[in-house]
């Protein structure tokens, strides 16, 4: 099946000369949740803005559901909903009015039943007559999501959707996103919370300095690039790592009670058997052990650091 979004050779150089995107190629599959990760200024928002029609690209093409974004802008923009990073709302409007306005803007006739459903799904129904300026930051964020969903988009962009949102609200939003995906909506999110990408995404793209350096299935990414750590909790305090164990590059905790061994799970030999044998030979006994896989955050930091 043809990807819902096809990006080819996309570059953007701003008038200031800043090269925000460099030859980006990317396909987004229908119905997936794609997380775009990258440090501040990496080009995430520029990429989203180009696809949504807010920023003109310098070179390259973008197709949404087979339509080119500039030539067939009506078709592509009708399919897309955008939740921006900043809390940009019409302060003096009521929640109901602003969400209804968004639906009209996208060329659809009024549908009070749909607006009611969206507001109820986002727990905004009891605030529908409130002016936006009276709402909390979290509620404003929900209003932005409601506006983006008002015209029933098939592709939803969430640019830092849970920035500044408390943990409980964040989990509520994840639930909303999951429900949207179940209804067939393709979701592209940028986030600084790797926990968010780890929790929700099917695939992950890493962008830095305008270059898309990696696109991978989340599980495969963790497996492929992940390192595992074996922690050994010792019976007796160790002053230093014995010379006979130097080959294993062990790390000793400051209290001398824990040894950590980092290994690559993709390697043919992990070295665990040899380590345990060497520990026994050195007369070092341990009372417990556990292993820990690298988080996405650690993988991400490693990738960006390598690029720099």
């Amino acid at each position, binding site marked *: 099946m043809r990807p819902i979004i096809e990006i080819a050779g996309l570059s953007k150089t701003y008038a200031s000369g800043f090269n925000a995107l460099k030859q980006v190629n990317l396909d987004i599959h229908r119905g997936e949740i794609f997380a775009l990760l990258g440090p501040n200024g990496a080009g995430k928002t520029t990429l989203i803005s180009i696809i949504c029609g807010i920023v003109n690209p310098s070179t390259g093409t973008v197709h949404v559901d087979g339509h080119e974004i500039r030539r067939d802008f009506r078709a592509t923009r009708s399919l897309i909903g955008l939740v921006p990073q900043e809390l*940009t709302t019409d302060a003096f409007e009521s929640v109901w009015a602003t969400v209804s306005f968004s639906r*009209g803007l996208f*060329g659809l006739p009024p549908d009070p039943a749909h607006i009611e459903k969206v507001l109820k799904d986002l727990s905004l129904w009891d605030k529908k007559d409130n002016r936006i300026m009276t709402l909390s930051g979290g509620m404003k964020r929900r209003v932005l999501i409601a506006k983006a969903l008002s015209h029933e988009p098939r592709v939803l962009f969430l640019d830092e959707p849970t920035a500044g949102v408390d943990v409980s609200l964040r989990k509520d939003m994840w639930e909303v996103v999951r429900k949207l995906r179940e209804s067939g909506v393709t979701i592209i999110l940028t986030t600084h919370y790797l926990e968010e990408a780890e929790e929700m995404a099917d695939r992950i793209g890493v962008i830095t300095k305008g270059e898309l350096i990696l696109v991978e299935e989340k599980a495969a990414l963790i497996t492929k690039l992940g390192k595992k750590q074996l922690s050994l909790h010792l019976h007796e305090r160790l002053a230093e790592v014995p010379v006979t164990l130097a080959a294993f590059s062990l790390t000793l905790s400051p209290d001398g009670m824990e040894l950590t061994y980092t290994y690559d799970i993709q390697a043919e030999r992990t070295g665990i058997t040899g380590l345990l044998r060497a520990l026994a030979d050195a007369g070092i006994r341990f009372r417990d052990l556990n292993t820990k896989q690298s988080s996405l955050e650690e993988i991400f930091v490693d990738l960006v650091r390598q690029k720099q």
Partner: protein
Amino acid sequence: MNYHGMKAIYRFEMARTGRTLMQSIVSPVISTSLYFVVFGAAIGSRITEIEGVSYGAFIVPGLIMLTLLTQSISNASFGIYFPRFTGTIYELLSAPLSFVEVLVGYVGAAASKSIILGLIILATAGFFVPLQVAHPFWMLAFLVLTSVAFSLFGFIIGLWADGFEKLQIIPLLIVTPLTFLGGTFYSISVLPAPWDTIALFNPVVYLVSGFRWSFYEVADVSVAVSLSVTVAFLLGCLGVVGWMFKTGYRLRN
């Protein structure tokens, strides 16, 4: 055509007027009434008729034009600048709307407000001076054309401005002086040479003159020239806005 989109923008902008009724409608009406009191009653009583029209009645078209110009610019420039300032412009830019549809929404609303205001001031003037409208069709035509042209001009200012100061600078430093010097309160024929010739370079002269003709059949310049200048200004503004949208000037860069 995205009719629902145009309607949404138009209604949004008109609703803004409703929320700021004092500022949008009441304030210009009070200002105009004060002009009548000062220029019409206090000073006007000492001025003889101008081309057979009492001074109080003579200034009515000029006063309506003064309000029409300033309000059209202010409504349209603020209408498009405010979303740029707050960031809500993202929604407009990501919506399936062509630049013509965006223009119809914003400029249509700004012009509508000005026309309503112009008619309210006309009605208010009726309380102070005896009014006659010799050519109602042309009166409305000038009213609509001028409102649309200057709303387009305001829209350009709203796109060009990158701060509230710039938003005000052209209306305050250029448009208002041109309006006052454009025959609002007098006929340019009373100006001494060379000022009567210099005044012909002021585009507002043509707007006021044509509009005044539709009331009293007296004009400083021919009606055809007035109409041509108004239409040319409108088309010029349309061209500039078209270029701004095409290049993404201050919008999609």
